């Protein structure tokens, strides 16, 4: 009798499936990135040509835009799987659901978080952010966006079964995003002024470890509730 695949194989398989699905629905997944770029581009137009002001508020603008872009993309983690019954199949898998959830959330970060990391330097340059702050900006996005996906997944898992879950989702998730916003923006500001940023970065790393180790289990439990 044949046996089930190893957990790692199943993880990689589901990750690849989600990336493939994202690639085939690329228009839908380009939306959050487009939103991120547009919001940040509109600020200089609205505020006028004041380089000092723009450089001053750049960390805040970029991170608020990243937060909203992440919110915009959250629903796609589980929505289509819930609607077509694939989620039931995942919940009935022989593998631990939490690990499969981790695969799905990782795929979500690769298609929504990673692109932000790639366009952020361009946008930072456009807003006139000083060079030494840009490296910190990238670091905060690298550490911060996975937290947004992880925490967001819990919220989506709780609301995916509701007919109008969108509003509840933002109310649930935004407060949990605020600490990331505060520490990330503060790190970039400190870097711009030439101060030490390790405290904020360590704090963000701690959030990341906490969310990676707890969120998949919470998400799996919430999905079971939503599916029943």
């Amino acid at each position, binding site marked *: 009798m*044949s046996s*089930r695949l190893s957990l790692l194989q199943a993880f990689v398989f589901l990750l690849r*499936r989600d990336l493939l699905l994202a690639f085939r629905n690329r228009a839908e997944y380009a939306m959050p990135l487009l939103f991120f770029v547009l919001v940040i581009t509109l600020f200089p137009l609205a505020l006028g040509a004041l380089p000092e002001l723009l450089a001053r508020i750049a960390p805040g603008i970029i991170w608020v835009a990243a937060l909203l872009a992440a919110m915009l993309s959250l629903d796609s983690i589980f929505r289509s799987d819930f609607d*077509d019954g694939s989620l*039931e*199949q995942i919940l009935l898998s022989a593998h631990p659901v939490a690990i499969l959830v981790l695969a799905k959330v990782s795929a979500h970060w690769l298609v929504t978080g990673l692109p932000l990391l790639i366009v952020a330097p361009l946008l930072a340059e456009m807003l006139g952010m000083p060079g030494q702050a840009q490296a910190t900006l990238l670091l905060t996005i690298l550490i911060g966006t996975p937290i947004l996906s992880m925490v967001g997944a819990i919220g989506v898992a709780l609301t995916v079964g509701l007919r109008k879950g969108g509003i509840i989702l933002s109310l649930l998730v935004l407060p949990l995003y605020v600490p990331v916003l505060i520490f990330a923006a503060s790190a970039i500001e400190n870097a711009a002024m030439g101060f030490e940023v390790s405290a904020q970065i360590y704090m963000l790393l701690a959030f990341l470890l906490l969310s990676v180790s707890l969120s998949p289990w919470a998400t799996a439990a919430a999905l079971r509730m939503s599916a029943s």
Partner: protein
Amino acid sequence: MPETALLESQDLSCIRNDRALFEHLDFTLESGEMLVVEGPNGCGKTSLLRILTGLRLADSGEVLWRGQPIDRLAGDYYEQVTYVGHHDGVKHELSCLENLRLARAMGVPSERDLDDVLEQVNLYAYGDSEVGSMSAGQKRRLALARLLATDSMIWILDEPFTSLDKSSMAMFTTLFEQHLQRDGIIVATSHHDITLPTLALQRLNLGQPA
């Protein structure tokens, strides 16, 4: 070795919207037996099936697999179960083969070649085409093809024959019979008549909603 009851429901009740759909339901399925759940719309057939898969919690009672409650077995129970629910559970953006490969990765892959599986459900020509462009009956056949692509003992089927034509129904009925002969277990709801020549067919009528 004396055969213990494989799948057992003890005192199951299901309450929905303050109304009891069924109460104190007991049945036992040994290997090679099939249970057909019958009853009018809204009598709790789907709920019963979802309780048997563990997707839904029973309001009282429990489901036992080889004498152990299924919620404690988790993965060890799920590798024995293939569920085809009301939704097909296939991804429209993926091809037939990609969908079946995923089903195998989630459960226990059978030794059958996937091309043979598709051939058996008459979808061989559609292996690489996107599921979204196929008809409802073809999607249903693909969903049921999961039963062959994975190696599981318990098949739980919610209206398996929805949108299937007569020849496909006959083909799947034959497959069900083969599964029972290999000592498998099937639990199904169906508005279509499932006629199997085997005697191992139990019928459970959930009756009128109270």
